[in-house]
């Protein structure tokens, strides 16, 4: 028995890992999520705003990180729509516009058909210039975005009336996969105006460690990787899930994407932990046997 585990063929471990990831996908396993502090504070930042507040949704990511960030973006949009906030979409990444359109299609047009473009949400599209754009909209929004993605001047868009600069918006919700992203929003928008601009963000696992220094004073809410996405998704769906149920009670799969992707993640992490423990048990048993002999 001990010998078997000591000389364990690593292919058994590979098989376990394969099962740990594939079974939850095939079974569409979902686990309960117990949202942690950061996801809750992200939720509260958006939820505590009075209905009709203005929320800037900055989608700075691309299809490569869609796996981790897509569910966050979906939940942000759903949450804002459910609360009746006005949504201002923009992107500092060129392909960000595609991500915006995708979420507008799959969430707003599909489940909130009563929302009106130009009144409840507007897609301002992509603007080149990285942090320069952020600096500019902090003081002069219409100069950076004189028109929306279809070229309609902002003066003709009802919900853009009275938007002089970023300080006129109530919250920034940023989904970020790198540069430019959350770090730049914090450095150039929040840091100079700590009392006027608030931001919550969702970012990839690789990015997350770099964001911790900003919590909580500059960054009150952070969703880190797929785990953060799943927790926030749960909070939003628990409170507002009834709004997106179809007549037959079915819910579109996109609203469970985060928790679904967390299934393989959780099992695989637990497997990793078990493997570390098992490895050490074998090591110590082996040491004791050696000592005895």
């Amino acid at each position, binding site marked *: 028995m001990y010998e078997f585990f000591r000389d364990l063929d690593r*292919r058994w471990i*590979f098989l376990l*890992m*394969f099962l740990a*990831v*594939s079974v939850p*996908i*095939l079974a*569409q396993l979902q686990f309960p999520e117990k949202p942690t502090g950061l996801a809750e504070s992200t939720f509260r930042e958006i939820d505590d705003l009075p209905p009709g507040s203005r929320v800037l949704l900055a989608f700075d990511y691309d299809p490569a990180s869609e*796996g*981790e960030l897509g569910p966050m973006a979906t939940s942000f949009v759903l949450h804002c729509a459910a609360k009746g906030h006005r949504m201002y979409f923009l992107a500092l990444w060129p392909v960000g516009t595609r991500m915006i359109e995708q979420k507008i299609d799959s969430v707003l047009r599909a489940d909130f058909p009563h929302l009106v473009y130009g009144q409840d949400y507007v897609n301002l599209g992509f603007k080149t210039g990285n942090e320069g754009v952020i600096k500019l909209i902090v003081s002069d929004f219409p100069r950076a975005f004189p028109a929306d993605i279809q070229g309609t001047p902002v003066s003709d868009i009802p919900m853009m009336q009275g938007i002089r600069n970023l300080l006129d918006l109530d919250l920034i919700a940023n989904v970020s996969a790198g540069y430019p992203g959350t770090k730049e929003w914090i450095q150039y928008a929040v840091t100079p105006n700590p009392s006027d601009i608030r931001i919550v963000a969702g970012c*990839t*696992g*690789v990015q*997350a*460690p770099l964001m911790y220094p900003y919590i909580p004073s500059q960054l009150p809410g952070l969703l880190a*990787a*797929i*785990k953060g996405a799943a927790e926030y998704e749960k909070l939003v769906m628990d409170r507002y899930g009834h709004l997106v149920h179809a007549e037959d009670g079915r819910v*579109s*799969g*996109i609203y*469970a*994407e985060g928790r*679904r*992707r967390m299934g*393989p*993640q959780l099992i*695989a*992490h637990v497997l*990793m932990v078990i493997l570390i423990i098992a490895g050490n048990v074998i090591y110590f048993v082996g040491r004791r046997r050696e000592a005895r002999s």
Partner: protein
Amino acid sequence: MKRETLVWTIVFVIGGVMLLANAFLRGAGNQYVRVDERAFVNVGTDDDPKWVNAGSDDILDHDAATISADRRVSWKTSSTVDARVWAEAERADPGQRTIVFSLSRTVGTWLAALFTLAILSFLYRDNPFYKSAESIIVGVSAAYWMVVGFWDTLVPILFANIVPELVKGTVMPGISDSPAMDARIKALVALVLGALLLCRLLPKGGWISRWPMAFIIGAFCGLRLIAFLHADFLSQISNSIIPLWVVDPATQTFDIWSSLENITLIAGVLACLVYFFFSIEHKGVVGRTARVGIWFLMITFGAAFGYTVMGRIALLAMRLEFLFEDWLWLVDPAGRHAIG
């Protein structure tokens, strides 16, 4: 050995039959595309063409009836759509031609799935499927980066500055035919160095290829020396200049936790630096400090390991989702294939 071969053959035959049945009975793995036509009309002369998009308002400024067919150009583009979209279009208008089945992309999806399986099979042991996939990727990727280097570097930076007329007339109609002087000089220098580099192929005089290598290594040594000292060295020191006595700005009282954190941070940086010290053997006080330094490094490594694991599992999950969702249609959580 014979017996093993037989077992594997049976496994593959049964698996293959099931895959084909899944494909033909359920349409699993089928790919559909939306076809769009792009058409342009030359409203200028043959020598000085002026092209107008036949799908835009601008074409209305010209009398289309008078433009002969040989002055029109058109081609089709296609973009992948979900099977559900195709099914809906078919239901609305049977036999429609805008959203159609794509054989090349369906074959591609199958090929991609088989390659995925071939690579994964290496985990069991080395085998002909893995070897084939490996041979293919070595050939394809070497050529891929050569093509990228040709079209993205050689053509726009080298050729466009050395033979601008030729490049403008063929592949990059948008460039200027009189490039800036400094761009030309740069391109010429690169051309000469490149030619020297290729001297390696000559039977004699291969040593001359050391010149361009010396240029590269020398120049980058200079650049990196400055860049690392300027960016990493100075900025890391600058970021570490923090007070060990932290006062909470809100309450104006001593903040013991933040102070402890800062003290640990500075002590950690200094201890790690002692570990990297080469002049003194790691004994006595220095040895003990270096030991603390190594502890900090180990915690750093543990943290990086833990954080990276999460992303790696997500990568595997994405690959398996491709197999189960896009290829086999075993699961359909987002309702992409649902027909009916």
